[in-house]
């Protein structure tokens, strides 16, 4: 029990630090926000969704998640930059604190940043794409966090994995995008099913939950090795 409480306190310590640093710099959120808004606007101009509401419903989920994936990638690429600068990562490697707590703290912080971007993005999409969900809208409360966690979990993990690579800006999307395909497929189809009301999203939600559980366990188990790799 003490160990679990200690682990939780270390996770919260890392999370507080991440939020504190982001509050000072606002690097991640500002970049992601403008990137996703730009994608929303550019696609709305390219497809003119107001003239074809059915098409708008069918593509808006995909556009939103692809935009978020691209935006999150730009931010996640730099999510370990602060640890790399001044060799802070070495201080973490020498610390007796559990390595996975560092990972969980950072992934939770990234989750909150992307969620904040989504909160701004949803009304923008409703406005620009003139959409209102025809399916069960409350399921979005499940789809959005599960999809966001899938995105940031792998992004945070593979960003750490590619830290020592010279081409890490390129390496992260090269690893992250193929691995995220099942999650992306599930989250886009889940969101589209809620917006169009044409099919049942439960299968996609289950797939997304399974993806999240498997990859969370794998990342927690492997992060220590990634951190201590030379």
């Amino acid at each position: 029990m003490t160990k679990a409480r200690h682990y939780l306190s270390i996770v919260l310590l890392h999370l507080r630090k991440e939020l504190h640093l982001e509050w000072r710099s606002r690097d991640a959120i500002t970049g992601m926000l403008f990137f996703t808004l730009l994608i929303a606007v550019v696609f709305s101009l390219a497809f003119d969704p107001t003239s074809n509401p059915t098409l708008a419903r069918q593509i808006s989920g995909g556009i939103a998640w692809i935009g978020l994936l691209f935006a999150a990638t730009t931010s996640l690429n730099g999510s370990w930059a602060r640890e790399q600068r001044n060799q802070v990562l070495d201080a973490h490697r020498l610390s007796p604190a559990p390595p996975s707590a560092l990972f969980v703290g950072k992934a939770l912080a990234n989750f909150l940043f992307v969620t904040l971007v989504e909160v701004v993005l949803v009304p923008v999409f409703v406005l620009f794409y003139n959409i209102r969900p025809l399916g069960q809208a409350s399921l979005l409360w499940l789809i959005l966090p599960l999809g966001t966690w899938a995105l940031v979990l792998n992004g945070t993990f593979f960003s750490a994995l590619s830290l020592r690579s010279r081409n890490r800006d390129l390496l992260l999307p090269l690893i992250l995008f193929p691995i995220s395909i099942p999650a992306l497929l599930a989250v886009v189809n889940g969101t589209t099913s809620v917006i169009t009301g044409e099919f049942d999203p439960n299968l996609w939600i289950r797939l997304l939950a399974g993806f999240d559980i498997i990859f969370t366990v794998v990342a927690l188990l492997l992060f220590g090795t990634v951190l201590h790799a030379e």
Partner: protein
Amino acid sequence: MLAAMVNAAEVNAADVQNVSLLYGNFAALRRVTCSFATGGMHLLLGENGAGKSTLLRILAGLITPSGGTVRVLEGSPAERRSRIAYMSHASMLYDEMTAMENLRYFAQLGCAPGTCALCHASPEMSLRAVGLDHTLTRPVSQYSQGMRQRVSLARVLLTDPELLLLDEPFSNMDGTGARDLVALLQDVLTWPLTTGASTGVAKRTIILTTHQHDLVSGAVDSTTRLERGTIAAEQSVAA
């Protein structure tokens, strides 16, 4: 090995046996064997690229050697992680946070389960010990190199380490600041340990590298000189 002979009855703080480290075809260290007696200050000397920093990183457990064995405080560096502190060329601090914020964060990270958050030294005390004002509200990025070095030293002192590994601790300091720091390190050796008594090793040991060896020549207990990845000479003050 001469350093070990000074106090042969006691356990060595660090033992390095036939350690080699290869980067492809380049040998950063070649069959290095040396020991550092428990208690006191030990100096590693050598030209740039001689292998001093590499040896310190191996002792800290940051690098696994290609061959040979390393024992630190009667265990592997990974096992003794909580009792070792390492200060590198880089500050190992978050630039965006103030000195106090950095120290509080690392103090809490260094605590074992069930202990209080700031169980060893307090961040304020550590900062005062290295001659810095704990009320400074500027982020570390706005500090001078010398000030960062001091905060970095305060960070390693926080964890009440038995073994301090210091890589060029005086490199960015002015003469007075460096002399003050040598005096502080001599003082640190006398600070009582709150940990480590379980192994019978209850003295602090400092192993440091510096190119300003004249600064510490009067304070060190042994000197080990490295040349191109091998031990060129060992000398203890008693010899």
